[in-house]
């Protein structure tokens, strides 16, 4: 019988790290090729299409940037939570909560406030919405030891149902021909876009600023230091006198708040009204988890990894249309990439040895 044994790697060089990531992507593409083959599609053609559809054309690239916006905001926030080992799986709900709050502000004051007041107000409301939703699992965890994976995950469903309830009930618009959804927000509540694209540049700028500020917070401030210590060794954090309750609250305000801002971007930049939750955020909150991991929890790298995954989303849409593949194809591609990147990371940190146990000295 053979046995696998795992050891920590003594040192990890940057070169090895880079090569591992490249290797993982190549291996993933290989498996993805098999999937395409099974679907009866030429894999080289399909993978080529994905990249052509996302980065290879001007139209595709604009779409990629558009989809990267919520991923950057949400992913950046998640790097902070994950760094402190607070497993926030609830970004999807936090995005929705942001959109919900924004809708409320937009519907309430849309016709009275001018744009330059209304839009900032919506962003603030969105931030607060996401932050408040993020606070709930933080409090539950620290005060009642309730596992945050469960609570954040469950809150996603609660938010989604809340929105569904609002759009078929009290907030249902009279211009929707009986379909669920609010009325369109007023002109003043809409974000302007780069002409010829859907890139709502205001949110994009906010996202980039958020990334820069987060980097400074993590690596330069006392709070960021405390987050890093807790994440490395929470016992040491306790010994160092770090206030876990306060720190966790701040982490979740930031993480949830940024997701909430992403929700405003989707609402006021793309959809212009609150519709079904799955259309407001088609899983950005979950994709952002991958984005944050791929960025090795470094906010700056989120810019790259968000763009990469946005590209896959857009490219996936492209092949879905041009090759007639089912809609789940993108998710499969996405999932395979994630699995391989995580595996790669494991092999980067560990050395796995295969050994045989039927040696003579053991049978004496």
């Amino acid at each position, binding site marked *: 019988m053979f046995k696998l044994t795992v050891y920590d790697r003594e040192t990890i060089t940057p070169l090895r790290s880079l090569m591992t990531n490249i290797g993982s992507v190549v291996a993933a593409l290989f498996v993805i090729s098999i999937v395409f083959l099974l679907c009866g599609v030429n894999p080289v053609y399909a993978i080529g299409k994905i990249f052509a559809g996302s980065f290879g054309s001007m139209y595709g690239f604009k779409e990629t940037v558009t989809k990267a916006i919520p991923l950057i905001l949400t992913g950046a926030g998640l790097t902070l939570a994950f760094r402190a080992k607070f497993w926030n799986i609830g970004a999807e709900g936090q995005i929705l909560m942001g959109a919900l709050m924004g809708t409320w502000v937009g519907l309430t004051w849309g016709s009275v406030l001018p744009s330059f007041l209304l839009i900032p107000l919506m962003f603030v409301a969105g931030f607060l919405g996401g932050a408040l939703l993020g606070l709930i699992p933080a409090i539950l965890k620290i005060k009642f030891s309730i596992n945050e994976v469960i609570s954040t995950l469950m809150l996603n469903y609660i938010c989604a149902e809340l929105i569904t309830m609002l759009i078929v009930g009290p907030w249902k618009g009279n211009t929707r021909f009986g379909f669920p959804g609010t009325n369109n927000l007023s002109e003043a509540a809409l974000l302007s876009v780069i002409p010829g694209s859907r890139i709502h540049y205001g949110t994009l700028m906010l996202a980039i600023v958020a990334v820069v500020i987060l980097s400074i917070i993590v690596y330069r401030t*006392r709070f960021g*230091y405390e987050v890093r*210590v807790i994440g490395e*060794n929470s016992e*040491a954090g*306790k*010994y160092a006198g770090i*206030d876990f309750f306060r720190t966790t609250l701040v982490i979740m305000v930031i993480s949830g708040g940024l997701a909430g801002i992403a929700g405003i971007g989707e609402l006021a930049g793309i959809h212009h009204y609150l519709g079904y939750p799955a259309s407001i955020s088609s899983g950005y909150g979950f994709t952002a988890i991958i984005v944050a991991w791929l960025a090795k929890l470094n906010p700056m790298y989120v810019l790259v990894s968000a763009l990469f995954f946005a590209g896959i989303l857009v490219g996936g849409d492209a092949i879905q249309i041009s090759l007639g593949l089912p809609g789940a194809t993108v998710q499969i591609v996405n999932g395979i990439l994630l699995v391989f990147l995580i595996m790669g990371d494991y092999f980067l940190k560990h050395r796995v040895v295969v*050994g045989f146990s039927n040696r003579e000295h*053991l049978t004496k």
Partner: protein
Amino acid sequence: MRKIETLEMVNISKSFQGKFANQGINLKINSGEILGLLGENGAGKTTLMNILYGLYQPDSGEIKINGKNVRITSPIDSIQQGIGMVHQHFMLIQNHSVIENIALGYYKTPFFFPKIRIHEKVVEFSRKFSFAIEPYKKVWQLSAGEQQRVEIIKALLNGADLLILDEPTSVLTPQEIKELFRILNDMKNEGHMIILISHKLDEIMDICDRVTVLQKGKIAGHADTAGMDKKSLARMMIGRDVLFNVNREPLPKGEQVLKVSNLHVLGDKGISAVKDVSFDVFANEIFGIAGVAGNGQKELAEAITGIRPVRSGTVFAGLKNITNMSPRKIYDHGVSHVPEERIKFGIAPGLFLYDNAILKQHHLKKFSRKMFLEYGRIKNHTRDLVDSYNVAAHSIEVQIRNLSGGNIQKLILGREISEKPSLLVASHPTYGLDVGATEYLREQLLKRRREGGAVLLFSEDLDEIFELCDRIAVMFQGEFTGILDSSDSEKLSDIGLMMAGSVRY
């Protein structure tokens, strides 16, 4: 028939990030021998043994068993060659029983009914070496010495002829050390060979046949212990003479720094660990707490420093009631803490050296302005610490986990002492330090005393206690069996009985 009659390491070199940890090392050991491996903190002892055990790959050099070259690329190889290693930090799963842990580390564990079959083996081995071990106890219920025995059985069961022990005694009580040495001697007489790493020269003299001394990654010499004494060993290690005795001049008693009254504290298992303890510590004083580990010392230290809640009773730092304050507030009231399990609690392993140099101090004005950390000052501070405490590190921008065990300790000690706390609570401060560092540390503690500070010193090492302390309390089952003046030699001669709870003053 032994698988290993002789083992040689020939010209072994290993470097990390371009710096040598081992350079051209030659070492030989024969069956029936105990070899002591000595050297300053960071000399490369653990690295060398990790190479032999297959955890690290050498850059160059060979390992020969019975004169033949062998390739050891992983612990699986080394176990098959008959090499076993007991690491300083035990690698046992706390919530599993002894048997389960042994089964996990055993190569021939049968698929069906593993426990029953392994049980026989364990009983056989424990009888052979008269180990006291309870196979069905959970690991967390075991003392450090018992856990170590489990590690040794694990190695023996896999057929280890060569047993490597990395600083095995630092976590043991004196009785447990005696027991360990008896087992090692039995093994030696059976024809096993043993490599022992230790900083305690008495132990080395006591049990080793030969020593090999490393200095800054190179061999400084080999010697038979028969022709050596402690002094000459120390000289071989650090290239100068070491003072084994420090001078503690009498000082007038200062003002009260700590007052503990009727303290009750619970242990991890919810059982009362500290029972009605009262004492006070004054400036210009080192107050020692002696006793066998596990008698409530850890809980007492943690309760004073705010890590563990106080059940009842009060703790005053000066005039300030610090009972159940947060660790940070207590720190700000001048109470610093060197915890017992420092590698576990005292560092954030993946952060840089300079990040770790301010773990408890990062909120202080001098290291942070408003919300920002002042990395310039922090790095300067770290450089000062590294220089004065002689921390061997490639640079201050390495992850602290890459430092050798002793050097991590030095950084923590330096960090806690350098802020000149009015009270330093120090648990076993010299564990894992080489002789030179031990000497330096003791000087620093005495310096704090001279400068008007106070030290609350927890130690199992009676020599250390006698040498450093003005007053000594003895702790047994959560209670003080007496507080003695260090000049009271008559009562002090009963300290062993007090530690066992049979005499009280």
